[in-house]
């Protein structure tokens, strides 16, 4: 069964450093998403991406964050100048066009900012 692949599974970074989280969505999917889950809390929407541009973003997704689909297969989330409160699990998701049938989450990247 097709999967959304996220790398790395765990990343530790120092406060103030830039970090890039990588995702390979399912190949025929058209819509891409990032979500964040702070430890012990609920999963929160960050951003959606379609047709090479952001289609929707939450108030969490401020200027510190950016997304990119650099080569037609990868979908990245960049966090500039990480803060301690950016420590969380980050989930990538993708879906085909049409309804949310087939919406698939990756297994997540646990980011720890020290």
């Amino acid at each position, binding site marked *: 069964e097709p999967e959304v692949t996220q790398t790395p599974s765990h990343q530790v970074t120092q406060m103030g450093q830039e970090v890039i989280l990588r995702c390979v969505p399912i190949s025929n999917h058209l819509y891409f*998403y990032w979500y964040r889950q702070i430890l012990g809390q609920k999963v929160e*929407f960050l951003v959606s991406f379609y047709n090479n541009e952001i289609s*929707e973003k939450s108030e969490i997704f401020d200027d510190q964050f950016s997304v990119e689909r650099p080569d037609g297969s990868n979908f990245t989330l960049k966090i500039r100048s990480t803060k301690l409160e950016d420590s969380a699990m980050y989930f990538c998701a993708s879906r085909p066009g049409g309804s949310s049938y087939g*919406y698939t989450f990756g297994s*997540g990247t646990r980011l720890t900012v020290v």
Partner: protein
Amino acid sequence: AQKVTQAQTEISVVEKEDVTLDCVYETRDTTYYLFWYKQPPSGELVFLIRRNSFDEQNEISGRYSWNFQKSTSSFNFTITASQVVDSAVYFCALSEALIGQNFVFGPGTRLSVLP
């Protein structure tokens, strides 16, 4: 605005007991989708079920069953004859059909099944 409420923060049951996890949602949309996900200690989100707003039929899959009631905006999840492997955090989620289809998750219910 969309909102998902899971009033039970934590539930503990003894193995073989039945347990129901509650989910109440709010949406202005007439077309929407409801989901349940399981998050084991390893952290990934495991898809359990998807339901669209036009399909109020209850569903059973093995020991799992779901009761969708539009009249009360609820989508409850029952595990029959619980097992220790069912221990996890369970999230209910809502996706509105016309708005980007990003998910709104509930706060989750932590289920502990004791041997």
